């Protein structure tokens, strides 16, 4: 598989001396969906800003589809990598939605009809048709969030980078946005990189997780990352609620090796278990059950 993003030995310190990144290495493959998790101040946002050359590390390099960032023009990179920032008020800076969505394509030097076509498509993809002439300050937060994704999609990037796309959204907008991101990946093969604290979205949303805390601590499938208790504790990370529930069930004698991370996986798991055990499964309480539950509780306390 082709590497979409390759980062080697990247370090970065802000001008005031704050060291934000140290020797970061990462590979994201074409068509993959990858999450970057880590505590507040871990450098996630700083890292994302390197992916299209907004920030440049002192040494080390970032390559996009094999092209080194240091060697190609910024315009080339911007065409490939679209970044959706966390606060939509930063992202939507033009007076109307149409102007905002047209901003990128115009800067790419496209012809007027092509620009209009792209704006129309981006609005359609995000379900915002009819919003062309709305001003950003008259939109709800969820609409703004979708609009800022549309403003990046109108540039038709092959890699989409999102900083906390699900933060502060109501359940419906959140589900909608997750659906859209997945669809962009599955239907158009867009590579996705997401920085997030939303652990419940991770199993559904990504294939692979990087734990970043100044440097890459580890990398792996959601299953692998969420099973590593020490790692989670050291990096202030949460696990999905479903995962915790099945750990509780395990204390009560439910038999499973690999714990489910999402509702879908849970349904699958239960169906399988019930199938093996002639149509039911069985829980019990032993002396050790309470001890185990207590241990489990203390495991997830953050101090």
């Amino acid at each position, binding site marked *: 598989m082709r590497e979409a993003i390759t980062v080697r030995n990247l370090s970065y310190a802000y001008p005031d001396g704050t060291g934000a990144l140290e020797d970061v290495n990462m590979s994201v493959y074409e068509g993959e969906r990858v999450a970057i998790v880590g505590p507040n101040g871990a450098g996630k946002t700083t890292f994302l*800003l390197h992916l*299209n050359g*907004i920030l440049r590390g002192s040494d080390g390099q970032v390559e996009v589809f094999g092209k080194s960032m240091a060697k190609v023009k*910024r*315009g080339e990179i*911007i065409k490939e990598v*679209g*970044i959706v*920032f966390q*606060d939509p*008020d*930063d*992202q*939507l*800076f*033009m*007076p*109307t939605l*149409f*102007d905002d969505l*047209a*901003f*990128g394509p*115009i*800067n*790419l030097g496209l012809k*007027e009809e092509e*620009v*209009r076509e792209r704006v129309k498509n981006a609005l359609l993809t995000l379900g915002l048709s009819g919003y062309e*002439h709305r*001003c*950003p*300050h008259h939109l709800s937060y969820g609409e703004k969030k979708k609009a800022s994704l549309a*403003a*990046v999609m109108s*540039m038709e990037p092959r890699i989409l980078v999102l900083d906390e796309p699900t933060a502060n959204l109501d359940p419906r907008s959140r589900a909608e946005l997750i659906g859209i991101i997945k669809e962009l990946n599955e239907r158009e093969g867009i590579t996705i990189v997401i920085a997030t604290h939303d652990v419940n979205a991770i199993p559904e949303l990504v294939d692979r997780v990087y734990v970043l805390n100044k440097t890459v601590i580890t990398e792996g499938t959601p299953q692998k990352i969420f099973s590593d208790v020490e790692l989670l504790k050291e990096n202030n990370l949460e696990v999905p609620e479903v995962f915790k529930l099945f750990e509780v069930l395990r204390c009560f004698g439910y038999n499973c090796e690999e714990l489910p991370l999402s509702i879908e996986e849970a349904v699958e798991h239960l169906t399988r278990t019930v199938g093996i055990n002639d149509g039911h499964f069985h829980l019990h309480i032993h002396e050790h059950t309470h001890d185990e539950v207590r241990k489990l509780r203390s495991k997830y306390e953050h101090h």
Partner: protein
Amino acid sequence: MIEYPEIDRYASLDSPMHRFDPRAKIIAFLFLIFSIVLIPDLKIVFIGLFFAIFLLILSRIPIAFVLGHLKWVAMFVLSFFVILAFTFPGEEIAKFYFLSITAEGLYTGSLITIRAFSAVILIFPMIGTMRFDTTIKALESLKVPNSLVQMLMFTYRYIFVFADEFQRVWTAMGARGFKLRTSLYALRTIGKAMGMLFVRSYERAERVYRAMRSRGYTGNPKTLVEFDIRRRDYILAASIIGFAVSLHIISFIGVV
């Protein structure tokens, strides 16, 4: 809630002024404003004022809305009027202690006041009858310098964001028992809050700039405009400009 500065609140009404092509409208109105401001004759300036009110009525913008804004202008302009009336040298017509009012002072004061009111009233049918982003686009296509257009654009976009931010800080201060008093403590607190707001807007500017560069900003953003100037617009613009010119002709030959 603090009030947003929404000059274009009534942009969605329908009137001849709303239908006027934005570029033609801006040119015609600016021409009219400048010509009224330059008229030296009080009687003719009054004709200008009536014409301004006529155009305002034509625009269907509620008078109460205009008066609300005019209040502030009035306070400013009337203070000028008073100062001029008392200080302009000339024939004395009244005296309070050591201060005297002159006829010339009254005349000049009235002239300036009426000019100012006419100009401010004309602003409403000019830019209150289209959305502000349309105004910006019209300016852009009239070849107003790009840096000025950008400044207007971002001011328009972010004034609301800052208003909200200010509101949040204010509410947070209120929630923790802060009351506005004229004490040193209150002033210091406000100073700190303002400083905080200033830092926040600086940080926002940095983030917005990043977002702009991420989408290929190089210093000259362009927008796509679709204005459609028609014969009607030419006629309307020509009439307004014609009126402005005739004010000066009348004033020059002194028929009134």
